[in-house]
């Protein structure tokens, strides 16, 4: 069984983890086209090579991000999600902006 290094709990058997899929960027749901939204929801890049993925250490429900090479299954690096998501994210409707 593969070992994954959890940024909080250290190296553990990969059976303790759940993969949450690729790290993707959500398009602005209030401004993107239907096609852009469908692409985000349903289509995955499935790159052959180094990808960023969400992983969750199930016993602690701790989410983090891993860089993994999908060709070799080598885990290059794991790190806290705050490295990529450091700012508060907010949403607004176009008509609300127009009203301001």
């Amino acid at each position, binding site marked *: 069984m593969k070992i994954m290094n959890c940024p909080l709990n250290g190296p553990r058997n990969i059976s303790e983890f759940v993969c949450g899929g690729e790290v993707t960027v959500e398009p602005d749901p209030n401004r993107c086209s239907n096609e852009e939204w469908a692409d985000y929801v349903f289509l995955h890049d499935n790159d052959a090579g180094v990808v960023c993925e969400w992983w969750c250490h199930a*016993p602690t429900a*701790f989410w983090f991000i891993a860089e993994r090479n999908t060709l070799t299954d080598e885990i290059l690096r794991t790190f806290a999600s705050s490295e990529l998501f450091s700012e508060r994210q907010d949403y607004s409707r176009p008509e609300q902006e127009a009203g301001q």
Partner: protein
Amino acid sequence: MSDAVQTATSALRRSFHYRDLEAAGARFQPVADAAVAWVYGDDAGNEQTRARTLGIADLSPLPRTGFKGRDIGPWLAKQSVTVGEASNRAYPCGKGSLAAKLAPTEVLLLGALDGSDPLPGALNDAWTDDAGLCFPVPRRDASFWFTITGKMASSMFAKICGVDLREKSFDNHAIAQTSVARSNTIIIRDDLGAVPAFHMLGDSASAGYMWMCLNDAMDEFDGGPVGLEAILALRK
């Protein structure tokens, strides 16, 4: 201790799987505001010997609490509870309590083993909703609390837990949050005198299941239940 005859159900607060303890021959004593399995037989010395080899005690009715949120550090410091920087380490505090830092944003506080330290209750009472991002976690009800003692403890754990808990790999006050017998569990090493000991906390609704799994795994080493009396005796 009170002379009054105690049963598992004489207090409102009960061990989650007290019927299993009764079935194993437990006699109960009031500790804090609950009844704890105090001794399983008539020969206390025998039970202490078992605790040195491989014993399991149910401490679930004992006081404990937890706090969670980004601001727990400053708030706990204000209550004179200081915990170190490192996560997955336990830090003694109060009068016999142990603060287990599970994450930068979470601390689990185990009260003293004899139930005498008022700290867990005092912290719960002191908490108000102006503590910032710092919130109490009802650990006393969310989690069972077993203590597994003795020199064969890590060998027993190796049968049901994928983390290496041998004494040389898992030092005193180290913490592992992992899966034991397919159930999420916190394991804290906290030796009792010279005897290796591990506190184990997990889903309170699975207390009976885990008790069964652990006792089954202990059979091979002649391990089994011990009462709180034997646990307290090890501290000396």
